């Protein structure tokens, strides 16, 4: 891999990578069973060069911000590289947000340029807030013939001839603004420097190296901190290959493991569970005799891999299972949310190591990671090299708030000194997560102090972001909380949001109200919905400006109501 110490910016490191491995494949893009794109590092450079020149001609300058809203595909990475080459700041936005949410974050980030896929652009142009679009130049990929571009340019035609000029950046300059939340409440745009990314990349690849020939299957959204690092920067600075799938149906994902002989893949817990379900169903179809054999082999593999993974041995013991994953898989990387230890153990026992870590966008990507020496399903691993992790104010069990200090921690939240001051205190990032170190230096997590949930799909959902959907509900007042925030538990998982309702005097809870609540809840994306409601008998405490005192209300609810009183909707 490249010696990252030599490079001051992501643009410089990526440019060096394109020259270092010209003939290695860097990108494969497939849609269903059709391969659409296959690029070497040299091809990638040739694709990016005219775009860089066109950006220059469009007066894209050092420090200018450019947002990308795209699903995982080759043009995402080519665009991102071009932005860095021209000295720009990348704003990767979650393509799963709604068009009004995209417009809101585009405005907040002050992105001058926007690079977007056609179907997402179409939705943005149809949003009532479209008139408020702040980006000056919009490049749209894959526009069908005859479509109305609404003032945008076709990405494929936004090209100029000639040699673009590389724009150097310093380590302390901003590389990316990544939103960790805040489409309903205050936007949290994490400002991350080139130094943060390069340090994080060096730390991660020290434990999990890539090399030419490694194939990384990129199915987490590239805008997500994990895939951006492990599915773009990491593989590229090591000469490895990234495989993109345009269709994330489970069956095509399973096919891709075999077709492209995948080495690594990062998954959210929901996908890992889906794979487990598929394998278990296959196991259940076996004849009793074959099943008995399989169980014995799994037991043997488990015994032989107790101390460390022995992937080659496991492949020989359980060839059918490993063939289903292409036969070259070295590890499944899982993150983004709480992962059931039993699911991780299931895969490890089959000889497929699962690497579980802990991270947050505010800390670039990862804070801790399991090094598989030995495999532990009950922890989120050890701090990465160069990362200091502390447990603040530990209780009698050693559990306290996890705080992080490293060069990879964000510099601040964009345009929000107040939230920044609450989050980074004396150089330490307060994560809001509760944890403890065991005797072997492994971090274990025990719930959260923050009023939020993390879904199995790796989405952070803050009550403030979804509350407005209940505006106008025929009740006196309401407030949304994370159930685990109201009633802290020392485990993660089973996370749900609860709508706390205070009825008008003499109002009865009736079927009409319930239906209204259900209908409004369904306007939210499925993973953002509240799981139940709680009827509350007292007025909510409010500030002088009539804002709900959430902390005080939570204290009151905690003191006199229990989780069992939540009614499912």
């Amino acid at each position, binding site marked *: 891999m490249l010696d990252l110490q030599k490079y001051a910016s992501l643009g410089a490191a990526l440019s060096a990578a394109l020259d270092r491995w010209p003939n290695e494949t860097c990108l494969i893009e497939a849609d269903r069973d059709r391969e659409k794109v296959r690029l070497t590092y040299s091809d990638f450079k040739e694709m990016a060069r005219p775009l860089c020149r066109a950006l220059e001609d469009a007066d894209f300058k050092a420090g200018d911000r450019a947002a990308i809203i795209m699903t995982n595909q080759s043009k995402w990475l080519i665009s991102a590289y071009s932005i860095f080459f021209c000295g720009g700041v990348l704003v990767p936005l979650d393509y799963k947000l709604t068009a009004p949410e995209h417009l809101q974050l585009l405005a907040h980030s002050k992105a001058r340029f926007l690079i977007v896929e056609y179907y997402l652009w179409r939705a943005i142009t149809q949003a009532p807030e479209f008139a408020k679009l702040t980006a000056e130049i919009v490049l749209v990929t894959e526009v069908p013939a005859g479509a109305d571009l609404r003032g945008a340019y076709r990405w494929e035609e936004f090209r100029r001839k000639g040699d673009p000029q590389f724009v150097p950046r310093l380590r302390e300059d901003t590389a990316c603004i990544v939103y960790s939340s805040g489409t309903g409440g205050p936007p949290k745009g994490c400002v991350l420097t080139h130094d943060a990314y390069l340090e994080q990349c060096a730390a991660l690849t020290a434990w999990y190296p890539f090399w030419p020939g490694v194939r990384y299957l990129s199915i987490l959204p590239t805008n997500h901190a994990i895939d951006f690092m492990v599915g773009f920067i990491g593989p590229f600075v090591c000469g490895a290959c990234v495989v993109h799938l345009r*269709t994330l149906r489970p069956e095509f994902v399973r096919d891709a493991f075999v077709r492209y002989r995948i080495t690594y893949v990062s998954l959210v817990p929901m996908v890992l569970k889906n794979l487990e379900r598929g394998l278990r169903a296959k196991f259940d179809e076996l004849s009793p005799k074959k099943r008995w054999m399989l169980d014995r082999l799994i037991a043997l593999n488990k015994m032989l891999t107790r101390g460390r993974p022995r992937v080659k041995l496991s492949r020989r013991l359980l060839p059918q299972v490993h063939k289903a994953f292409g036969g070259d898989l070295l590890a499944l990387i899982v993150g983004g949310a709480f992962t059931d230890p039993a699911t991780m153990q299931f895969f490890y026992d089959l000889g497929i190591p699962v690497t579980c870590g802990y991270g947050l966008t505010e800390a670039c990507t990862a804070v801790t990671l399991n090094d598989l020496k030995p495999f532990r399903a009950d922890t989120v691993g050890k701090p990465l090299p160069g990362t200091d992790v502390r447990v603040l104010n530990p209780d009698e069990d050693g559990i306290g708030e996890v705080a992080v200090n490293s060069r990879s921690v964000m510099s601040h939240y964009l345009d929000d000194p107040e939230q920044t001051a609450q989050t980074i205190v004396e150089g330490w990032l307060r994560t809001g997560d509760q944890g403890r170190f065991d005797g072997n230096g492994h971090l274990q997590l025990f719930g959260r102090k923050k009023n939020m949930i993390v879904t199995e799909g790796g989405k952070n959902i803050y009550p403030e972001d979804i509350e407005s959907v209940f505006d106008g509900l025929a009740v006196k007042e309401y407030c949304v909380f994370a159930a685990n925030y109201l009633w802290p538990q020392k485990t993660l998982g089973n996370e749900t949001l609860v709508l706390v309702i205070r009825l008008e005097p003499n109002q009865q809870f009736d079927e009409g109200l319930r239906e209204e609540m259900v209908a409004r809840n369904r306007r939210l994306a499925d993973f953002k919905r509240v799981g139940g409601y709680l009827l509350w008998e007292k007025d909510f405490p409010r500030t002088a400006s009539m804002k709900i005192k959430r902390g005080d209300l939570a204290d009151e609810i905690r003191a006199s109501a229990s989780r069992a009183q939540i009614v499912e909707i």
Partner: protein
Amino acid sequence: MQTTDQTLDQILSLAATHFKVPREKLTADDDFFKTLGIDSLQALDLLTRLEQHFRIELPDYELQGVSDFRTLAQRIQSRL
């Protein structure tokens, strides 16, 4: 060409068979995540079955934000 109602009826039957729930338990305006007890990946699995049945290709984004059978039927109908 078949009507949206016919498409809807076929979707409900296919969903019932695929996820092994009684057909009569499913209605057009059901939130299929809840009624079928499935996550978004299982919903994508259903989409593949529907593609095979209707002989169309539906990009993943067509399912984004869709959680009831009626809207799903409309999305499919527009590509028949």
